[in-house]
């Protein structure tokens, strides 16, 4: 095993950069994040369906917003976090950072897909078309391509360390480009249509609608953390299956 430079962080957190510690910690944390996600989702769904009023213009179909917006926000948030940890992995040569980035990618891609799916089902009754090439949906589609590219590049390289670093460079390039892509798509959409209509703009928000949306966003966030922790554990076992600690952990 190669020696790693693990810079000491505050509160002794750096020991979780070591795979066995991370594996154990993640195992203990997953139930907590999972339960939090479930509770928050239950509250959020209750608010979404039984407290938030019917929208004056869109009727009931606007309630899709309570899963559409959280998915879209998580897709973008996860990409930024993924790029951050991949960058750390390259800069400090820590395996765990890169593994964490890899663990988040499929969940982020799934969020992007769900944002697109729910947005399409919202668009059809509300504005007449499943897909209307508006700025936010188009940007989310490109974000999905960026996720897929990250996973494809990582999967195409056999050596895990080279794969981690290559995908990491790609993620950093992507995160720098993402604002540029977003603004260029906004310009593209508004200049081709005249009036800049954001097709998935929320209806004027009653306070209860905002609350429900925030609670659901937190639920999605907690879920994403739990899913990423689980995937990170799997990746660790897969990569380290020949080491003592992994074989020990597999027997527990």
């Amino acid at each position, binding site marked *: 095993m190669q020696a790693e430079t693990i810079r000491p962080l505050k509160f002794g957190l750096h020991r979780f950069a070591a795979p066995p510690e991370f594996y154990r910690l993640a195992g203990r944390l997953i139930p907590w994040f999972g339960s939090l996600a479930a509770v928050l989702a239950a509250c959020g769904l209750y608010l979404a369906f039984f407290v938030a009023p019917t929208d004056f213009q869109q009727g*009931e179909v606007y309630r899709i917003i309570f899963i559409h917006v959280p998915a879209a926000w998580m897709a973008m948030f996860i990409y930024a976090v993924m790029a951050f940890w991949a960058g750390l992995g390259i800069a400090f040569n820590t395996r765990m950072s890169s593994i964490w980035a890899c663990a988040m990618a499929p969940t982020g891609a799934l969020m992007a897909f769900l944002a697109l799916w729910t947005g399409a089902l*919202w668009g059809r009754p509300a504005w007449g078309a499943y897909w209307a090439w508006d700025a936010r949906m188009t940007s989310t589609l490109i974000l999905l391509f960026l996720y897929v590219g990250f996973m494809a590049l990582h999967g195409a390289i056999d050596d895990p360390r080279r794969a981690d670093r290559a995908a990491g460079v790609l993620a950093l390039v992507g995160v720098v480009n993402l604002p540029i892509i977003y603004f260029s798509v906004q310009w593209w959409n508004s200049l081709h249509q005249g009036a800049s209509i954001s097709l998935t703009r929320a209806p004027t928000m009653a306070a209860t609608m905002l609350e429900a949306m925030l609670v659901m966003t937190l639920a999605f966030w907690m879920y994403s953390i739990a*899913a990423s922790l*689980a995937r990170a554990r*799997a990746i660790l076992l897969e990569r380290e299956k020949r080491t003592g600690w*992994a074989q020990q*952990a597999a*027997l527990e």
Partner: protein
Amino acid sequence: MHWASWQEFWAMGGAARYVWGAYGMVVLALAAEMMLLRARLRRAREAARRASHWSNKEAE
């Protein structure tokens, strides 16, 4: 609670297939992700156990 009945709730003012199509996909996708992750962890644990079995055999 402003639904007159459960029927009204499921009907969602006529937009049922859109609302439940959206929520349904989310539930389906997240459930699928959880199941796949569980299976992946199981396979990883088995692979590690097999690796330990072989390294034990080598030691003999």
